[in-house]
């Protein structure tokens, strides 16, 4: 365990723990899943949400997880984000085993290494944009300035507005700023444009794309909108709790060129 910013953290991995060769270039694996299985028991019904998923997310890449409702993509993201536990298999962040971590360790993991963006923004209504970001930077190990994070998503002028005074797209961009302000290794986005019209959605995707490029944050984005797949390095299709296929884009499309 290392001490970071005066606070002991159970999750301060040394980068370059796992690696793989990709086009002859050695790439660091940020998140890894092996045989990940999740079974829910609700009453008498047993639901196999994940049926043995093997997955590597490389440092700095932007991955889009595509799949229909109930395919298990959210469950996968939740386990990788430290929000849910797996029934079997292993999920690793760098060299840390997430599947074996206790609640306190997972809290630290989320606090220092993972940024979340939700479909419904989940901003705190009683805090301004800047304060919503500061909420996270105050407890993170190596945060950026909240104003810088908001500038990065194009909201430099709106820092002192409350959520009720912002449009949906603006609220989602505040949520992105809040997610990246801790300078996380991973950014997990669950249907970030799901509640937005396409024009506003593009603005949000631009912010995500920019963060991925400028900060090199590994980004996983869940959507059922196939168009969004064009802006990714890789598109992973999930169906019935399994990875159905993985396609690699030779070039990433700019979000402004997307339309749906």
């Amino acid at each position: 365990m290392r001490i970071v910013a005066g606070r002991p953290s159970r999750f301060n991995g040394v980068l370059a723990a796992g690696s793989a060769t990709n086009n002859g270039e050695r790439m660091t694996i940020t998140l890894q899943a092996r045989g990940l299985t999740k079974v829910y028991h609700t009453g008498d019904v047993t639901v196999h949400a994940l049926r043995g998923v093997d997955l590597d997310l490389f440092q700095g890449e932007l991955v889009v997880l595509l799949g229909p409702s109930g395919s298990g993509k959210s469950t996968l993201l939740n386990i990788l984000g430290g929000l849910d536990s797996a029934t079997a298999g292993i999920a690793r962040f760098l060299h840390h085993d997430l599947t074996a971590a206790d609640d306190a360790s997972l809290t630290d993991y989320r606090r220092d290494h993972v940024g979340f963006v939700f479909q419904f923004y989940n901003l705190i209504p009683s805090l301004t944009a800047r304060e919503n970001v500061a909420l996270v930077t105050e407890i993170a190990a190596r945060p950026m300035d909240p104003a810088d994070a908001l500038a990065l998503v194009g909201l430099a002028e709106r820092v002192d507005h409350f959520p009720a005074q912002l449009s949906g797209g603006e609220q989602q961009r505040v949520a992105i700023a809040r997610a990246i302000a801790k300078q996380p290794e991973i950014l997990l986005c669950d249907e970030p444009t799901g509640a937005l019209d396409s024009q506003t959605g593009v603005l949000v995707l631009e912010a995500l794309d920019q963060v991925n490029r400028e900060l090199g944050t590994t980004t996983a984005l869940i959507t059922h909108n196939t168009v969004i797949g064009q802006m990714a390095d890789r598109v992973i299709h999930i169906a019935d709790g399994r990875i159905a296929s993985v396609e690699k884009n030779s070039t990433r499309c700019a979000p402004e060129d997307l339309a749906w």
Partner: protein
Amino acid sequence: MRAIDRKVLRDLWLLRGQALAIGLVIASGVAALLMSLSTLNALRETADAYYERYRLADVFASLKRAPTLVESRIAAIPNVKTVQTRIVQFATLDVTGFAEPVIGQLVSIPEGRQPLLNQFVLRSGRLVEKNRPDEVILNEPFALAHNLVPGDQLKAVLNGHQRTLKVVGTALAPEFIYSIGPGALIPDDQRFGVLWMGREALEAAFDLKEAFNNVVLKLNRGADPETVIQRLDQVLTRYGGIGAIARKDQLSAWFVANELKQLATQSKMLPTIFLLVAAFLTHMVLGRLIATERSQIGLMKAFGYGNLEVASHYAKLVAGVALIGIVLGLALGSWLGRVLTELYGEQFRFPTLLYAPSVSASVLAVGVSLLAAFAGAAGAVRGAALLPPAQAMLPPAPLSFRRTRFAASALGRWLDQPSRIVLRNIGRFPSRAALTTIGVAASVGLLVLALQWRDSLDYLAQSYFFDAQRQHVMLGFAEPHATTVVREVAHMPGVLAVEPTRFVSADLSVGPVTHRGALVGTPSQAILQPIYDDIRRAVVPTPPAGLVLGTWLAKKLQVGIGETVWVQILEGRRPLVELPVVDLIQTYIGTPAYIHINALNRLLKERPSVQYVSLLVDQNDAAELYRELKGLPAVSAVMVRRAAVDSFQDTIARNLMVFISMFAPLACGLGFGVAYNSTRIALSERGRELATLRVLGFSRGEISYILLGEVGLLILLALPLGCVLGYLLSVLMAASFSTELFRVPLTIAPSTYGVAVVIALAATILSAAVVRQRLDRLNLVEVLKTRE
């Protein structure tokens, strides 16, 4: 059952924790009201029935001696229905195994039957028989205090003659619900007892053949006792009458009436406060609860339910919650009422109790509770029902917040975001925050009020028994004695100091107001029984002339220092004089009027005499002193201060505490209900926000801080507010509590505030712990999906 009605039951089950907590609040209000009013009704009815059944007289009169012929003249007074003449005398008793002398009040009864008036309930044994002059019936409390049963014997000095009396029965009587010795203020069953003896036996013992010295009258229904008393006084004056009194002034009846008056005051104030707080909490809590049902209401409307059906659905839910409280409250209230009535019944020694839970109180309590519940829910239901269904199903738009000047201030900038969330939420919902604060403050205030009584009574006892009295023993004589008796007493064993006091019955009048009381004659340098003023906390020297009045009496007569009072002495030559008021003093017990003993003797135009002698006693010789006193025929009362203090604690203090202590647990329930509901509703309103924070990496402790911090902060505000409220309530209570018998000094020990605060904090911590458990089970995955 319709599906929608099934939903009511399921929802109630789902909300059971909160429903129970709200129910607890409603129950405490309902129970407080029902308990108080039922007890009051029961005691009033029991007392009235007791008086009626055993024919308690309407008018009482004492005199020196009148021949039995006078009876017909009394019977001729208009409106007199029944006349019962009696012999009432005092005697010194010697009870085996009890060191101190005991005073007995002997009351004559016809041999072999009950008297016409002031009958008694024979509790054991039999009536006294003809030609058995030594048979007595004891009043039950006295018999119990000394473990005397029929067949036992006790020694008595009757008119200077040593006699052995045989106990043939024990009895209770409405005339002696409180049996108080002459000159004593408080019942003391060990040192004072009532003995019923045959009329012929007492005539013989006290040389009152064919005569009587006491008469009681029953009047025609609706007759005014005052006019009868005037006529009776005219008849009795020449036989040494000292002024007849109506039943309301009869010692025991007056005592009981005072107690019931106090109970009535308490019954009005405390439950009103409880019910108000409960109503207001129910209003707040149910309103917030319904507001969280917004999307469900939208859904119901989307299915095609009309506004009325939606409203009635939630009205049923609210009624369900209220009913839990009402049923709980009615059960608790009628049970506590019975317990309280029985406790009082034991104190009053009623032979039977007429207890029934008060129907009118139940109806009132149920009405107020339901009204509060529906009123609380109505606004929220209406608001939700008026929304178009599609909008209602959507999550509500983020609440708008404003930055305040505080946020920009130095302190504001220094705050971390969680603290900012706490403060903004309070600022955003000031009325809600105020309600929580006031609710908790009210329960703290009620606790202070309940606990403060002990302090006040301790202070009263200290002031009355220790600051204002320094004697160990006070002797009372049946008749005024020449001052030489003081010197005689001074030579008795163990007596270190003596001081005379003279009591004379008198009417004090100013304008139309007349107070029937007594003048207390006190020597100049009184040390043992001085004139003590509790405002100055000092002994006031006895002025050579003029009156020193207690402030209560001065207020009743509406006189101040320098003004005059007409005093009609009711003994001896019955002089009427006008006396100036020279000083006022604050006392908590009685309504004294002091005068210099020499001035009093001059007024009476009698040789200097005394009626009471206060003694300072060397405790080593106390036993010997008591032995000698048992043989003194003239002594009619021996009041030991230590015993009086004990008796005060046993009777007056206990009566008050019984009632008050019933409220302490109810106040605790109220406090817990407020704290739990506030936190629990905040959790359902903000569960999503808190879960988001957990996802963002906040620990359980940190999100608990946000939720519980808000309630905690409000409670910190509520605690001092509650103490202030408690003080104000105590002021109000003390003011509404004053009677001629005694006033309650307003005293609140710091520890009382402390205890109330600790209890409130404990209730808060308990409710926080319960809510914290729920926080730990927040579902983090859910927040990522949809809203609500």
